């Protein structure tokens, strides 16, 4: 059945989780971080994964990004079963098709804002000239013009998250996975980061899947998937 779902040509989904479970073993205790969960994310969506701490949000995002491997079930990204790929292939997918934003400490400390944003482009082998135009365009878009040469420790938390977002989208990925991107900043900064993500979603059609447990943040999403104990509690699309 999962194969049939994956091959259904009508659906424009970018991410598909089919009966996915993740069980962590700590000695004799089993923790079901994700429990038989199925989920699809459509291209161009702006989707929030909500739920209290420990509900399995991070685990879901990590499995979508190939950072974690499900105990049962399948994860498809752009219709490719991640389990069928090698470590190197998954790394290449992360490099080319996924943008990651974490809660904090996203940036490589020894590199400037510019170099951080440029890093993945360089990994992709993009030419220096093109790197420059693309990075400058993105830095402008995220409002960091003038801060190109700052190192992470010379920037505020909000500025750092902007660099992280810039780095996530500069490669024009299929999807940006953001794990509690606003958890470490004040609410005004959180608002402006959400404004930015929303703008990138609307203007450039980038799919966003972000996790949060902040009510104000989840209200900005088009679709809200609520989780509890590793399961989906509710899944609604807002007007």
């Amino acid at each position, binding site marked *: 059945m999962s194969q049939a779902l994956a091959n259904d040509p009508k659906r424009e989904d970018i991410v598909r989780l089919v009966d996915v479970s993740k069980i962590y073993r700590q000695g004799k205790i089993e923790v079901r971080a994700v429990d038989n969960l199925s989920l699809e994310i459509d291209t161009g969506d702006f989707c929030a994964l909500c739920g209290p701490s420990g509900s399995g949000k991070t685990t879901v995002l990590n499995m979508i990004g190939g*950072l974690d491997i499900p105990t049962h079930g399948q994860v498809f990204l752009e219709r490719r079963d991640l389990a069928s790929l090698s470590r190197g292939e998954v790394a290449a997918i992360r*490099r080319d098709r996924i943008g990651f934003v974490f809660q904090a400490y*996203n940036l490589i400390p020894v590199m400037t804002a510019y170099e951080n944003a440029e890093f993945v482009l360089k990994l992709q082998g993009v030419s220096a000239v093109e790197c420059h135009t693309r990075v400058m365009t993105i830095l402008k878009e995220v409002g960091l013009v003038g801060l190109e040469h700052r190192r992470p420790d010379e920037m505020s938390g909000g500025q750092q998250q902007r660099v992280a977002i810039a780095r996530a989208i500069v490669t024009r990925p299929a999807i940006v996975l953001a794990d509690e991107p606003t958890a470490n900043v004040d609410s005004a900064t959180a608002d402006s980061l959400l404004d930015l993500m929303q703008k990138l979603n609307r203007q450039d059609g980038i799919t966003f899947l972000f996790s949060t447990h902040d009510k104000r943040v989840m209200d900005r999403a088009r679709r809200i998937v609520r989780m509890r104990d590793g399961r989906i509690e509710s899944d609604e699309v807002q007007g």
Partner: protein
Amino acid sequence: MQMWNIAWRNVWRRRRRTLITGFSIGFGVLLAAIFTGMAIYMYGNMINASAATGFGHVTFEPIGYSKAPALDKRLSRVDTLREQIVHENGVDAAMERIMGQAMFATASKTVGGMFLAINPQHESAEYNLLIRSLVEGKVFSDKNAGGVVIGKRLAEKLNLRIGKKLVYTTTDVNGEIVSEIARVSGLFVTGVDEIDGGMALFPLRQIQHVLGYHADEATLIAVMLRQQRHAESSRDVFRQKYHDPSIEILSWQQTQPDLAGMITIDAASNYVMQFLIALLIAAGILNTMLMSVLERTREFGVMLAIGLSPKRLFWLVMAESYWMALIGLVIGIVITSPFYWYFDVYGLDFSSLLGDESYTVSNVLIDPVIRMKLHVIHVIAILSAVFGLALLSGIYPAWRAGRVPPVESLRTI
């Protein structure tokens, strides 16, 4: 590419730790240079001193002489041969010598010992320990002169002074016992008891005459090379060129097997010592790199998450070890150079500590001034060994970095 740049900056994130590790690598270079340099200088000294008492770095001698030395064994046409050898590549001097055993006697006493007959025009203080060690009187000026130079200890035993007569007895070419008289013209003190108490230096012609040799016959030709370390390769070259079945060409390792053995053993213990130092340094680098990797698991997790492949992460950390090693080598060169310069120019003089006592190993006098000698090849060997070691000890930490499962490292907030 960019990785080298990131690696370089990463190395300097913990400035103090990097400098400490760099200095420990540099210290390794210093120790290796000192141990190797002193040993090479000392061996060189001993080899040269030993070569200067008889056989040279390379010896041309009658076949079977080294196994059973005897005065009836001799080379002929030594003048032509010597003339030819002196012009060979890498040869500094070639000296025809006659060596043998003799009894030395005066009216009061008889002492057994060795004699060495030389052509003073071909010899020099540099290549003849006995000439170099002259303390009283003078050495005869040419091979046709008369006179004898003996060890001071021998003179004391025989109650001899300069100008007095010495009777020496040996066997000639026919095995007959022959005796002759020579007047003592000089005394030497080498510091080696066996030499000072039982050796005599004669002009060549006088001994040829006594033994019944022709004017162009001698026991051997001692060849001194510009670089003693090329003794074996030069010997092989000579063997190719001078294939006379009556002549045997040997290197000092063959004519002085005791010394060669001693050097081999000493060098081996030196290597063991250096290996232990190397292990300590490697453990230090490994520890530093591993620490720096383990404290950055989160950072590596992020790098893996945004698409760096584990393979590239491995090479990033290897590049850090590379820079670390390079910093260590630069520090090593900077701290070793003044040491080397000092040891080369002034040396470390132990003569005041040793007093008048001289120090010998395998009957070879040791210079009380300790110096260092390193050839380019040793410098290259030391630097590349230390460099290779530093890189080698970076492999495990680099492998660990690539192994960090991204999830574990990202979970930590």
